[in-house]
């Protein structure tokens, strides 16, 4: 080994350590940003190390790739509105996974003949995982963005078709593993993996996308780790494994918070089934006028805001903060109740409210706030539905039975802001809306909130 290689290896070690430290930094909001700088520095070090230590003969492709990628990536990062985070992250995924798959194909082109059994196996895994993550993430991004219908797309015999594709893909993988000279089989595997990614995600409803994305994140990480095994490169193994685990842990956490199993998310076609299962509810939904609602809020002493997915789609985070400040100016105690799976990504509400400068201290997690609802005068539900559905607690036959909820129905009065009779992610009817303590304020959350603010000012 020459001095350049040693330098390269040193940068890889440093990068690995920086990646670990950066994830450690993520354990606290105060250190999170410093953590990110570390990860960026690590990535930079690894790139420089590679360019120095590897035998590079042509620079044109490298430089143009880096430049083009930076422009597109930078544009993606700068222009994304906070509410489109999920789909942008999914898109970013797709690109990373594509790179891993292509590196595998390249390795195959250049070194296929010299590969040992283990390396070839890792290569196959890398290409397979990379390819299916690419198309899977693209579909996920499309569904989240609304380009592709959010409804689960299902047809008769779908499972059989999927099984066939999956078996075909794995079969060609094994065949290629045993017979490395079968070049065609390698490409068949690649093609089937692309198709398989699509088929995996298509039947899943857009509401389940966060779990799917987390899992795809995990796959992308494993693809990178497999690349590490192929190239004998430890930083790839470490970064890939960290990513793989983070994705896996997050999806498990999400499923737990929704009280569902991962298999159910992946193969249940949840949304589809439920669309039929929603029963009718007795009772009526009572509407409330803007002025009455404003009056209630203005003369309350304790108000809790309960944001949900509707807050994100309406981009109402600033409006809610303004209303809260007005109320606080009048001496009302305002708190925000954050359900772990409110919205469409873990921590979604936190990000949105942070964007609107809502102070941390006002945000309360489910366990903290639930005991306080009994002493709350008005709970304002802003585009949340499932996370406040009392059926989850009271009706053991409900499809979401057992999912922990924010118990707003314990509050003296509940005002629900939504556009109409729309169901939430689960497609279930919500008995909360029919309770005596509940009144509905229809309309887009953002405009409702700013009208409320105006009305409060006039009280």
């Amino acid at each position, binding site marked *: 080994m020459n001095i350049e290689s040693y330098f390269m290896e040193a940068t890889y070690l440093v990068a690995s350590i920086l990646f670990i430290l950066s994830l450690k930094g993520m354990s606290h909001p105060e250190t999170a940003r410093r953590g990110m700088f570390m990860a960026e520095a690590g*990535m930079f070090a690894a790139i420089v190390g590679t360019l120095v230590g590897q035998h590079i003969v042509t620079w044109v492709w*490298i430089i143009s790739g880096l430049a083009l990628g930076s422009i597109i990536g930078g544009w*993606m990062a700068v222009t994304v509105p906070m509410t489109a985070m999920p789909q942008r992250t999914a898109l970013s995924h797709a690109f990373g996974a594509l790179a891993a798959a292509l590196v595998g194909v390249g390795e195959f082109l250049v070194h296929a003949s010299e590969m040992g059994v283990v390396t070839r196996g890792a290569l196959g895994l890398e290409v397979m995982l990379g390819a299916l993550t690419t198309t899977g993430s693209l579909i996920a991004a499309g569904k989240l963005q609304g380009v592709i219908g959010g409804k689960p797309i299902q047809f008769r015999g779908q499972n059989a078709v999927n099984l066939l594709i999956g078996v075909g893909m794995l079969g060609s993988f094994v065949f290629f593993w045993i017979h490395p000279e079968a070049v065609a089989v390698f490409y068949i595997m690649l093609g089937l993996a692309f198709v398989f990614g699509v088929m995996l995600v298509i039947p899943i409803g857009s509401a389940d996308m966060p779990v799917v994305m987390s899992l795809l994140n995990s796959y992308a990480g494993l693809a990178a780790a497999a690349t590490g095994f192929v190239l004998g490169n430890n930083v790839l193994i470490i970064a890939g*494994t960290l990513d793989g685990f983070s994705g896996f842990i997050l999806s498990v956490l999400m499923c737990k918070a929704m009280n569902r199993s991962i298999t159910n998310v992946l193969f249940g076609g949840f949304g589809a089934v439920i669309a039929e299962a929603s029963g009718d509810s007795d009772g009526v939904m009572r509407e409330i006028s803007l002025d009455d609602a404003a009056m209630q809020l203005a003369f309350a002493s304790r108000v809790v805001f309960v944001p949900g997915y509707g807050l994100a789609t309406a981009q109402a985070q600033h409006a809610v903060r303004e209303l809260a400040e007005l109320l606080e100016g009048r001496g009302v105690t305002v708190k925000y109740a954050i359900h772990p799976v409110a919205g469409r990504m873990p921590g979604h509400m936190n990000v949105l409210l942070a964007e609107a400068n809502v102070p941390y201290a006002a945000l309360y997690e489910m366990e903290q706030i639930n005991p306080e609802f009994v002493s709350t005068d008005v709970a304002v539900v802003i585009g949340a539905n499932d996370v406040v559905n009392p059926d989850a607690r009271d009706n053991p036959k409900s499809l979401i039975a057992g999912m922990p909820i924010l118990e707003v129905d314990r509050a003296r009065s509940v005002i629900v802001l939504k556009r109409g009779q729309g169901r939430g992610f689960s497609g279930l009817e919500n008995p909360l809306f029919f309770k005596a303590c509940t009144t509905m304020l229809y309309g887009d959350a953002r405009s409702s909130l700013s009208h409320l603010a105006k009305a409060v000012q006039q009280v």
Partner: protein
Amino acid sequence: MNPAVLIASVYVFALAAFLGYQVISRVPPLLHTPLMSATNAISGISLIGSLVLAGGGHSPLFAHLLGFVAVTAATINVVGGFGITDRMLKMFAKRLPAKNAAVNE
């Protein structure tokens, strides 16, 4: 691959898995969205494999081309991922004066 290297790689993988579990299970829900996009950005590390493919010696032109696409894609992943994460974290950072409160999240 030399068996000793392979074995060592397996160790690296196992240890990284443990460490990943330890470290990530301590991230508070507040930061789960940034965590997701940060690890996404980090997985763009396959960029270093792409660089070799795009610029390495002894490869057919087709491999260079593949490498170019891979470099572009991986760079989008890295730059986009870190950029998005940074934008999110900047929002959190704004609120930092409320120091101790953050521990409640």
